[in-house]
């Protein structure tokens, strides 16, 4: 048991060191939220915000941008996992008496670090253009916990995509699948403005629950059922994706 924990710790350190030796990995999670904030505030925001009280659209949309940033951070796991499968280093992991599931887990956990960078950049960019949260420290902590939970779930899905792709290129293209539900949700616009058939999906899917939780938490209000639904649904996604991904990796490792 002690050694399994050590295997996981070594693999987490490995993936974090990859970020240190390859800091370009962070350009994605730093540039993308800034671009989103500029886009939603100045480019699209003018047209979209007509339905909102003056200046309040940024308060509505920033929680959504947090989740978009989490999704973009998560899909880098697809690349990390797919690169590993093509690399000789995986051969050595396979010949070691180690917990094989730790290899994929390391990449997923390192993603949380990337996501935290994304959270910080998004918050800073949001504040710069007028976003204000009335939440206290507790509300922010709860909000960050929700973002990390979403990152973790999407990152395990991204790992799954990385293991299913037949090549690095195919896997990276498939990873776009993970971004789609983020846009087909109430993240950037109220689900209520969509046609009924679409609203059935967007209003009830886990991403919308997570974004609604964030909105409530950052506004300093109780998040209520949104929060419990989001936590339960994303926890379920984590359990399923973790089980599938570790099984797939172990199978790939014993071909």
């Amino acid at each position, binding site marked *: 048991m002690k*050694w399994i924990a*050590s*295997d996981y710790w*070594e693999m987490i*350190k*490995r993936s974090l*060191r*990859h970020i240190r*030796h*390859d800091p370009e990995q962070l350009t994605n999670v730093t540039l993308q939220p800034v671009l989103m904030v500029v886009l939603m505030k100045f480019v699209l925001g003018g047209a979209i915000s007509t339905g909102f009280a003056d200046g309040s659209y940024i308060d509505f949309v920033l929680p959504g941008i947090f989740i978009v940033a989490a999704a973009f951070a998560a899909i880098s796991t697809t690349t990390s996992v797919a690169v590993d499968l093509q*690399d*000789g*280093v995986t*051969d*050595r*992991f*396979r*010949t*070691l*008496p*180690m917990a094989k599931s730790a290899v994929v887990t390391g990449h997923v956990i390192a993603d949380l670090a990337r996501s935290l960078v994304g959270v910080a950049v998004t918050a800073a960019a949001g504040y710069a253009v007028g976003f204000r949260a009335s939440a206290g420290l507790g509300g922010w902590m709860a909000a960050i916990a929700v973002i990390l939970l979403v990152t973790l779930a999407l990152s395990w899905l991204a790992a799954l995509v990385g293991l299913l792709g037949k090549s690095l290129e195919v896997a990276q293209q498939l990873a776009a699948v993970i971004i789609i539900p983020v846009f087909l949700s109430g993240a950037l616009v109220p689900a209520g403005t969509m046609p009924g058939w679409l609203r059935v999906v967007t209003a009830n899917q886990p991403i919308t629950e997570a974004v609604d939780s964030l909105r409530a938490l950052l506004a300093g209000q109780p998040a209520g059922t949104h929060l419990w639904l989001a936590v339960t649904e994303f926890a379920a996604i984590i359990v399923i994706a973790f089980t599938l991904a570790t099984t797939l990796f172990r199978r790939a490792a*014993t*071909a």
Partner: protein
Amino acid sequence: MMYEEAIGVDSITKSYGRGALALDGVTFQAAAGAVTALLGPNGAGKTTMIRILATLLRPDAGRARVGGHDVVTERARVQDLIGLTGQSLSVDGRLSGPENLAMFGRLHRLSWPAVRQRSGELLELFDLKKAGKKAVKTYSGGMRRKLDLAISLMAEPRILFLDEPTTGLDPASRHALWDTIRGLVSQGTTVLLTTQYLDEADALAREVVFINAGRVVATGTPAELKAQTGQAQFELIAASGADFARLTAALAAFGHVHGDAVSRAVRVAVGDGGVADLNAITAAVAQAGVDVERFSLREPDLDDVYFELTRDLSHPAAAKEMA
């Protein structure tokens, strides 16, 4: 076999998909505390064999034991004993050398003090200290290969698999690696290596297992293998076309002469290529009054072994002989 057995392979068969058999009933043993070489041309099945023994592939049929443990049913026990340096480099290019050593040491379940001591020793031994904290992807090919081997040695494996360890190395690094392998073996490590080079097998191996097209076609010591497959040959290059004709006639007395009129080279196998044979040849050449431009002794090489051992009906030369 008179030695303690470290690796026992019994009728291993492996195919990839519906394709031809990569291994077709391979059986051999490797002695503990010695180097055994799997020798053969590209595509012979050497790497497949190593990957099965290193628990990376499951055989379709047959059994293999490494250190007394079955490679399929006792994978974890086998993994405790082995180190592997494969053809595709098994190092993490996005970590530094010391980070690679520490990570794999910990994954091998070494204590932290053991990891620090062992990685210090290996960085010293392989002259890798100067690279410091640079990522391995910036290393030269030779340095990467040395690090790869160093990682394989972290846990002081009892049995070491080396898949074409010197391919792509310059001659100095190649000889340095040979010395390292000899040093490991003198401390009791068992080494199974694959190579395409007879001189490498000759320099390192106690036993050679020659594999071709998925089958073992010969086993023995390097000397036995060479004796089976070809003798040392004298090669003389005549100074002119007329000299070539007289030289061919003069040497015919020694046995089968192989002459090539274009290069004016005449080859003949005489005894074991010793001093007495050398004297006999030079005497014959002097007596015939032939002008010889160059004179050399040619040892049998992998080409000779290869053509001798892979002779079958599909080989044009062999087909002609059978006709």
